[in-house]
């Protein structure tokens, strides 16, 4: 039987999450039929859905969050009533002594700080989810002694379910598709408690259900999901002439409308104007979710609030949409989903994610045509990608994202996590906190973004931790066989063979170009 280890490397790493260690035989299976290996996952229509014990629906989660918020409020009020004194001022931050900082060389600064580092307590800090993005809201940190609240617990349960699935699937192509679409239609868990509570459910409900379905359906599911409406403020947006707008003297918020056109569909420069943004914002007024009192429906579920909806017809992208309530916005989204700019934007982004930062134009054109011809059939789009020669021939120059790197490492080490802590902390450190990008454009998708000096150095630190912990029990050369076999470079093989310990060998293997590039 012909075996093509190089193609297996592409199948497992470009399309999937890398080979699993142990007895999986992933590399051998992929080598005997690379395209078939990747496409096998597309043939399982329900394989992409995620159901696990403890995962709840968006309304259930919303109600739990409301209940928790009520509890906190009551506790706060009770505490206030008991001790009506002002909270003490936090002590002023100590400023560094200017005298000490003067005229030092960098080397002196290093030496000085190395002394401080020796006194530091690493076990204390290393598990704290420090953020790598200056200014980005840090994920909620729990002190070890304090029990997790329902929001933190839910986030970890959702994260764990996603990670376990990624560790267990054969190739990981559909999971990679989920990650791609989830980042395309991202929300940020740092928006607030509801966003953190809903981040996992949003992906399960709005992304997974449609990842091998129709783009227009995914678009509608995403834009009507409470998590997205909350993330981009649409639940606050009122039609200026609607009954609620008149009564409450509040009005339009165009955040969601703009990002729908700029980031979700047409792409910037996709042929829309400020007037179109305002129109779409009016069209989707009233798209909200039912609150804790349930006046608009089951608390935490999508709701159309006719009282907040801007009355009258609206002109969008040269077409008039009659005032049909909720249907007005749904019709507009359906048209935007089929717009030629959307096909172009999605095809380019898709090819960039999987193949190259500057994707081959012929590949982009073919994907665009498939998108148009099939009316946005996302399974057809994925299949066309796997069937293309470009996707198999382009050199492996893409840099694995931190998430891909951590999952690939976990797979190779054959570790199914029982606790998401290590992954969540590592993702924070590496600048890709789970479901928490800095903006609605999601995490970057180019090598330049992830191959930054600080990022690579931190990956090495994390790989070393894994090596120190797991290295004693593994044979690094076996793992190299599982990961790349004869497609591994002579230099990588030599580096691992010559390592001074198994721990070191494992760290070097995880950091090798074969594991970092895809």
């Amino acid at each position, binding site marked *: 039987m012909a075996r093509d280890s190089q193609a297996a490397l592409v199948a497992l790493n470009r399309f999937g999450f890398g080979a699993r260690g142990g007895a999986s035989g992933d590399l051998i299976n992929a080598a005997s039929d690379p395209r078939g290996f990747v496409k096998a996952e597309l043939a399982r229509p329900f394989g992409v859905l995620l159901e696990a014990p403890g995962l709840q629906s968006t309304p259930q989660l919303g109600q739990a969050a409301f209940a928790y918020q009520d509890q906190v409020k009551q506790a706060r009020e009770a505490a206030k009533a008991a001790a009506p004194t002002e909270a003490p001022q936090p002590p002023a931050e100590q400023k560094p002594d*200017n005298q000490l900082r003067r005229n030092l060389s960098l*080397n002196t*600064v290093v030496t000085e700080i190395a002394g401080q580092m020796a006194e530091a307590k690493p076990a204390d*800090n290393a598990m704290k989810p420090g953020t790598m993005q*200056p*200014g980005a809201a840090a994920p909620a940190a729990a002190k070890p002694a304090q029990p997790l609240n329902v929001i933190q617990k839910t986030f970890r349960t959702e994260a764990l379910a996603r990670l376990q699935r990624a560790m267990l699937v054969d190739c990981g192509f559909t999971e990679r598709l989920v990650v791609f679409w989830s980042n395309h239609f991202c929300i940020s868990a740092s928006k607030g408690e509801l966003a953190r509570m809903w981040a996992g459910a949003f992906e399960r409900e709005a992304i997974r259900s449609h990842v091998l379905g129709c783009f227009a359906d995914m678009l509608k599911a995403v834009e009507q999901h409470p998590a997205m409406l909350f993330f981009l403020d649409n639940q606050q947006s009122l039609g200026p002439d609607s009954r609620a707008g008149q009564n409450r003297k509040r009005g339009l918020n165009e955040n969601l409308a703009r990002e729908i056109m700029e980031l979700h569909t047409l792409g910037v420069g996709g042929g829309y104007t400020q007037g179109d943004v305002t129109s779409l914002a009016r069209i989707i007024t009233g798209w909200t979710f039912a609150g804790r009192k349930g006046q608009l429906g089951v608390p935490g579920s999508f709701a159309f609030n006719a009282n907040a909806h801007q009355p009258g017809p609206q002109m969008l992208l040269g077409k008039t949409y009659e005032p049909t309530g909720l249907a007005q916005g749904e019709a507009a989204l359906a048209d935007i989903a089929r717009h030629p700019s959307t096909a172009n934007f999605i095809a380019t982004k898709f090819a960039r994610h999987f193949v190259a930062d500057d994707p081959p134009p012929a590949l982009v054109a073919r994907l665009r045509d498939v998108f148009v011809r099939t009316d946005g059939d996302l399974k057809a789009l994925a299949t066309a990608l796997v069937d293309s020669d470009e996707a198999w021939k382009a050199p492996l120059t893409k840099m694995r994202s931190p998430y891909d790197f951590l999952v690939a490492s976990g797979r190779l080490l054959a570790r199914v996590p029982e606790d998401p802590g290590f992954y969540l902390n590592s993702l924070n450190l590496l600048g890709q906190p789970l479901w928490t990008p800095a903006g609605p454009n999601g995490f970057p998708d180019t090598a330049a973004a*992830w191959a930054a000096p600080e990022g690579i*150095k*931190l990956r090495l630190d994390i790989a070393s931790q894994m090596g120190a912990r797991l290295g004693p029990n593994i044979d690094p050369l076996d793992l190299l066989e599982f990961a790349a076999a004869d497609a591994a470079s002579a230099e990588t093989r030599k580096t691992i063979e010559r390592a001074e310990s198994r721990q070191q060998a494992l760290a070097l293997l995880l950091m*090798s170009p074969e594991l970092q590039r895809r």
Partner: protein
Amino acid sequence: MIDCVENRLLTSRRGLLLGGASFAAWAYLPKFARAADGHDPRLVVVILRGALDGLATVAPIGDPDYAGLHGSIALASNGAHPALMLDSFFGLHPSMPEFARMYRAQHAAVIHAVSTPYRDRSHFDGQDVLESGYGGPGRVQSGWLNRALEALPRGERVSSGLAVGPTTPLVLRGSAPTVGWAPVALPQADDDTAMRLVDLYRHRDPALASALSQGLQLEKAASGDDMKPKPGNQVAQMRQVARGAAKLMAADDGPRIAALAFDGWDTHANEGGPVGRLAFLLGGLDGALAEFESGLGDRWRDTVVVVATEFGRTARINGTDGTDHGTGTIALLAGGAVKGGRVISDWPGLKPANLYEGRDLKPTTDLRSVIKGVLQGQFGLSDQVLAQTVFPDSASARPMKGLVA
């Protein structure tokens, strides 16, 4: 999988890499030939991502249309939280007392109604234009600060820029060497492993070799006990990042140019006025500027900090007590080298007819002119280099004179 961390000694040989003969890995060590006057310029670029509301930060309180447009979140010169009046017309947000102090000491200035050449309202294209220095979006391979570094005499004043954060901001990306640093707390790989990996990368993946080598250089220089991330408090994080960067830049052989970015300025809803969400963030920015001042010590004398954002926000508040994406905004300068105590503005006015597209503060100053003025004042870059290399095709945006003392 890994749920605890080896409690091992963290001091490693890597600290020594920054001394003596090990500098080979750092091919672009800055060398200094001090100018005769002892001027040793430093430049910090702070990018506020999300589009800062310039009208809320430096409010044109004297403009008769301001209060009506900014409605419930407008600043006023009186009341419980009065704006800090910079002159008879402009008032500074009350959560920026440090900047106000610098302004009074003539070490801070405001440029108002400023904008890049970008006139649409996408954050991401706006940031690309702001950082790439090109006239329009779509050309994002390198940033103006990196090209300015390249234009400096190599091996003299400055030859390496510092990128603060886990990814290098576009403004500092390009062919001139940069080093990165971010505040973290993580046990570090030992030097032997690191050097073996550098060696493997050198043979198989030169781009990763270069990234890793640079990443190894500065990891400890700025990380001390006080540098641990403080999760959950964005304001503390801003200060902490600034403190670390200042510490690195204060060293005689530390980087002279740094870029960092603060996120979170996209205030679509419940922006708040003198108190509230924006006030909280501005307090963090104010604290970061103070950290630069104290951390740089007597180097502050030669420093300019430029604070810029991709565009402004609508002059009129939206339906949710926030502001949507707009155009004209402010740029802030702070530092001992700033010829400050001024609000520099060709004020366009806020009458409906004077607003850009009937909604935004109309830009009357090109941000490139401001930055060019700073680059020229600090590093002596020529008009021609600024107009062709640093900001391509920008001859019409003349460097603003007299920004630097």
